[in-house]
């Protein structure tokens, strides 16, 4: 004979088990892609492998350089809230207009990103090779150069490395790999160039002109004690930020 309290206990256990199964189901449903990849049963193709291997590294570099005026270790900077912000236009004099310090901003940022992900690219190619070798492929990897390009709404890294995978009679060949990071840095740099042009010719910029035209753009101009201006450009949708410093047409204290 089953005791009434035992029956109650069984029901409670069943309810708890049911809740746990449902919760597990929800967790698997919500985090399936991550669980899948972390358990290592994701059969990624080489392009997807390179994308997932490199994109976080590119993002890390971009997140480091964009608040610093596009440089990883700025040589000439203004320290603002413990961030070294590179001067893109500067004069040490009063009243004078600034001298442009970086006329090729886009190209300079591309080379900064390239220099910083160089070792990651090598590492990812090594991982790619060992991953497919481990999966029983005969791997032939020819390492070539790679290029970083800032493009509208994205940053593209093109690896001119070719890969040949052979398993049984089947052979797959990849001539190059393209890793893309969604980012509005290209647009922010275009705005920065326009601001620099005004700083170098007129000594100042009216920020509202940019915000009226580019609706998702926030432009902050913060004048510091020595006359340095910190510009913070933010894309309101993506929250991508680009910061830089300029010192132009400064009035001396007591002028």
């Amino acid at each position, binding site marked *: 004979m089953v005791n009434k309290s035992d029956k109650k206990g069984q029901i409670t256990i069943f309810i708890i088990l049911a809740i746990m199964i449902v919760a597990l189901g929800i967790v698997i449903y919500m985090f399936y892609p991550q669980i899948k990849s972390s358990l290592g049963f994701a059969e990624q193709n080489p392009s997807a492998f390179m994308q997932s291997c490199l994109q976080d590294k590119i993002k890390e570099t971009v997140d480091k350089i964009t608040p610093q005026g596009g440089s990883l270790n700025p*040589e*000439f900077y203004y320290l603002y809230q413990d961030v070294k912000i590179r*001067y893109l*236009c*500067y*004069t*040490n*004099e009063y009243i004078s*207009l*600034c*001298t*442009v*310090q*970086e*006329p*090729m901003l*886009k*190209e*300079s940022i591309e080379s900064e990103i390239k220099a910083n992900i160089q070792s990651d690219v090598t590492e990812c190619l090594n991982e790619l090779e060992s991953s497919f070798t481990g999966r029983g492929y005969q791997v032939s990897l020819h390492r070539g150069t790679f290029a970083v390009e800032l*493009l*509208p709404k994205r940053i593209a890294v093109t690896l001119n490395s070719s890969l040949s995978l052979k398993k049984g009679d089947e052979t797959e060949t990849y001539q190059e790999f393209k890793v893309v990071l969604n980012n509005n840095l290209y647009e922010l740099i275009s705005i920065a*160039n326009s601001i*620099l*042009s005004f700083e*170098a*010719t007129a000594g100042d910029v009216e*920020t*509202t002109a940019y*915000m*009226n*035209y580019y*609706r998702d753009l*926030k432009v*902050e*101009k*913060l*004048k*510091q*004690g020595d*006359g340095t201006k910190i510009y913070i450009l933010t894309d*309101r949708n993506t929250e991508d930020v680009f910061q830089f410093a300029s010192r132009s047409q*400064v*009035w*001396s*204290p*007591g*002028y």
Partner: protein
Amino acid sequence: MKKNNLIKLAIFLLIGIFLISLISSQVSYCCEKTTYGAWCQNEEESKCSSSFQKAPTSCEATSFCRQGCCFNSQEGNCIENTPQKICMEKKGLWNANSNCEIPQCDLGCCLIGNQAAFVTQTRCKRLSNLYGLSINFKTEIGSETECILSATSDIEGACVFAQETEITCKRTTQKECNEMEAKGESGGFFSFFENTEVVESSVEFYEGKLCTNAELETNCAPSQKTTCIEGEDAVYFLDTCGNKANVYDAGKYNDQNYWAEIKDVAESCGYGESNANSRTCGNCDYFYGTTCKKFERGVDAGSPNIGDYICRDLGCTYEGVRYEHGESFCAVVAGGDLVIGEDATFNEENLAEKNQPGSRYFRLLCYNSEIIVEPCADFRTEVCIQDEINGYRAAACRVNRWQDCTSQTDEEDCENEDKRDCIWFDVEDVKGCAPKYSPGFDFWENNTENEGLCKTADVECTMEYTKPIGGSWNCEENCECDDDSWKTKMNNVCGYIGDCGSKNNYLGYQGFFSMGDLYEKESIEKD
């Protein structure tokens, strides 16, 4: 005699060399690169990097730091005031015309789809290439405004085509529709709808019509879904095929005509108004302070009757005052806080307490429901000015024009706002013209110029005392000069000139001098 002359000459030469070296140590050099990393600066010689060139002249006079125009032939950008060496090292094309008045930098109107940019021809080529469009560069359009206004979107319509067993439709331009047709003829193509393949090649374009037009007999029908479209302000209805329909107007949801033809925003509900938080109309306008956003409880005041999108109010509230999107206003730091409105204005009474050392002016902007704080230049070299047109407030930071205040002797000239920012004061018979926004000084540095300026507010007061035989000293003349109130008033006059006299800083802390430090008393006895 000859020997004496030689000695004299040697001494003369030595003195000359010494003087030259003394002068040259103070002469400004053009440093190609400074020790602190800046390119092309006029600096002391000691601050020029030894690895780079330098010359005892202004940078403009040197070949290595001469400023000019740097043209980026890849991107088509022209950057003014760029030294030759930096430009060429970075593989730019340098031209001596520092204002970039060269043919490569001539601007024109670049039409990219329905967008326009006032750029160089090379830049236009680059942009067209990046967006996969053919170049459309118009040199005859000479201004940015004209260029932006000339941007027109291609006429859209319904592109009807067969898909599997159904007749479906995509709202697009004639050109895009023709491309679909061309691709379809070559034997099936992937349509713009993901993972669907068009197997029939019959594609027809109906200009100005919506896919939901009953005459077209497509499988696209009106839906209760709405959406925001990138680059547009309004909320739009969507049809069941996912195509953009007309501007969201709840009252016209059941109106078949509203789902038949494409209507311009000017023909839609609430045109010329903000339609902020409207439950029924999605005709938002950024310049009226609204934009399409997904409805959020707690952020938006009213939920839409149909769909999930609404015209979000982009205005702001600051210190209990409502500001429209795009408005700007002035503030000043007082007691460590930003003060706006009446408290930020100045008059003779509050001048001394407002322009304290360390205080500065600010412009505050209301954009996208956010207040952006923009400081004017420090040391009150810039002030914030504000005006109102039809209730719309606009502010700007501009240079503080105080420099010739102290030389004005007439009240009218002094307070001529077109020329200067000065205020006339009359304190205990001490009259004069002082800066309305007293400038800040870097008084912690050895700046004799500022000290001299403060001295202009020095006042001498001769008090006369008499002492009868056997009696005590009695003040006979100018006795008020010994009163604390007189001293305070005179100190305020000092304060008008700049960071002079005894002042508390903007946080309320006492400065270098107390009132007693400023007051010197000298006794001269007469028989």
